[in-house]
């Protein structure tokens, strides 16, 4: 006879217990974003932005119907916190909001509580890194004399920017005196996460036997302050741009699509705890495997998703504005119908 393992809770608990479930009001329509967990797995979480109101319901389901649940109060919190891996005990909370859902008393049946945090500040982007983690979550707690019952729901926050006003190109001449002179140019210094790096490498002097050139994207995560600063470098991408030996006067193009790589926006001194910066590392390798490199920081930012109307739809709108005629209206209707089909 096979004996099944009994779930411990139902065997040992003599009192009442409950399950908590947190549900956002706009769960049906709100977008989810993928986010890496500490052990590298990817999960989807509701995506929220700075200033948005967070509202929803806390469902408390009694496990043993008919029995009462005595409690010292029910509350829900919205928390934004930074956790440094080498200092796990200390969570640095930079956002901490609380709403009381029920005063101390008892629940005789399963119940749902509404909550709303209005215009919540979410100043930083969610980040799971090598040595530090920043996360936002809702936590509902039923306080009890001996042990609380709580449930956490993680959410992801993205920080958005718009096209920077100033975005100068990066252009520099570097090299080793009398051996190798190159001029490299990248079309911008600030790129959004789905942008393209367009650039070129121009050879002014080549007295070395170069056989290969690549461009690497390096992510540097800096944690700690003062004498305890720790940099963690990670090469996110290696992209070959030249195979073979260049000579003077040659220009090698660069076209690197960033959308294919997992990156975050540049984060500088977040709550004075950590930074995440990105660098382009131009690497030349000669016939004897010697490496020559030049690193240059770039700023990455996150662009908000805009609903992209099709080109024909855009053209139809433009012509209607210009002509205001029935033929333009027809064109617009046709374009709209086509779009709905897609």
């Amino acid at each position: 006879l096979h004996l099944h393992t009994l779930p411990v809770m139902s065997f040992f608990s003599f009192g009442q217990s409950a399950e908590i479930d947190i549900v956002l009001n706009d769960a049906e329509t709100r977008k989810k974003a993928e986010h890496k967990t500490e052990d590298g797995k990817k999960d989807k979480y509701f995506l929220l932005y700075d200033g948005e109101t967070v509202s929803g319901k806390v469902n408390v389901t009694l496990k043993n119907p008919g029995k009462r649940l005595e409690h010292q109060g029910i509350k829900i919190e919205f928390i934004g916190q930074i956790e440094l891996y080498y200092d796990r005990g200390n969570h640095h909370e930079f956002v901490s909001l609380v709403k009381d859902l029920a005063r101390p008393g008892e629940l005789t049946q399963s119940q749902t509580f509404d909550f709303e945090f209005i215009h919540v500040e979410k100043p930083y982007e969610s980040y799971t890194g090598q040595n530090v983690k920043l996360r936002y979550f809702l936590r509902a707690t039923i306080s009890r004399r001996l042990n609380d019952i709580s449930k956490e729901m993680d959410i992801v926050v993205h920080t958005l920017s718009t096209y920077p006003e100033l975005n100068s190109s990066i252009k520099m001449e570097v090299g080793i005196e009398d051996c190798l002179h190159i001029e490299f140019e990248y079309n911008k210094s600030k790129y959004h996460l789905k942008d393209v790096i367009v650039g070129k490498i121009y050879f002014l002097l080549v007295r070395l036997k170069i056989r290969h050139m690549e461009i690497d994207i390096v992510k540097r995560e800096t944690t700690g302050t003062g004498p305890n600063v720790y940099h963690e470098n990670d090469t996110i991408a290696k992209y070959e741009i030249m195979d073979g030996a260049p000579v003077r006067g040659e220009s090698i193009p660069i076209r690197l699509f960033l959308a294919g790589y997992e990156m975050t926006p540049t984060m500088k001194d977040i709550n004075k705890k950590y930074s995440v910066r990105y660098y382009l590392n131009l690497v030349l390798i000669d016939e004897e495997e010697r490496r020559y490199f030049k690193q240059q920081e770039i700023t990455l930012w996150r662009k908000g998703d805009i609903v992209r109307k099709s080109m024909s739809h855009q053209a139809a709108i433009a012509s209607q504005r210009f002509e205001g005629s029935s033929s333009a209206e027809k064109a617009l209707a046709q374009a709209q119908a086509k779009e709905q089909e897609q």
Partner: protein
Amino acid sequence: MSDPTVADTRRLNSKPQDLTDAYGPPSNFLEIDVYDPQTIGVGRNRFTTYEVRMRTNLPIFKLKDSVVRRRYSDFEWLKNELERDSKIVVPPLPGKALKRQLPFRGDEGIFEESFIEERRVGLEQFINRLAGHPLAQNERCLHMFLQDESIDRNYIPGKVRNLPKGT
């Protein structure tokens, strides 16, 4: 008018290349041959020398075509000088073969043809790797090794040109 939601991926403008640059000889020509091993002397005072011929168009070398004779200990001397005076990681030399120098061997020891050939190949690889290194090119000992008739072990070590710091 370009759609701002689609990135502009056109190449950056660049100067057209001069045809003499494109089709002329490259500025990085450097070839060193180690060949013609000759064993000199008799009995226990024998040693092998190799001809070291360098052809180059690098301006840092005074002679564009030079030939000298060197023995294994000269290569060792060069390696030691560079390890002491420069920050470079010097490539490895072929082995010293001390075992081959012990008596009562069945073969010619270090004068065995196959061994000399093996050593010649190793020395050629060594000197080519080294001479192409921008920092090694700056050391007087390398120039003396490659282009002076004999090595003056009492020379004054030093640099040939001033490289900027951090190179």
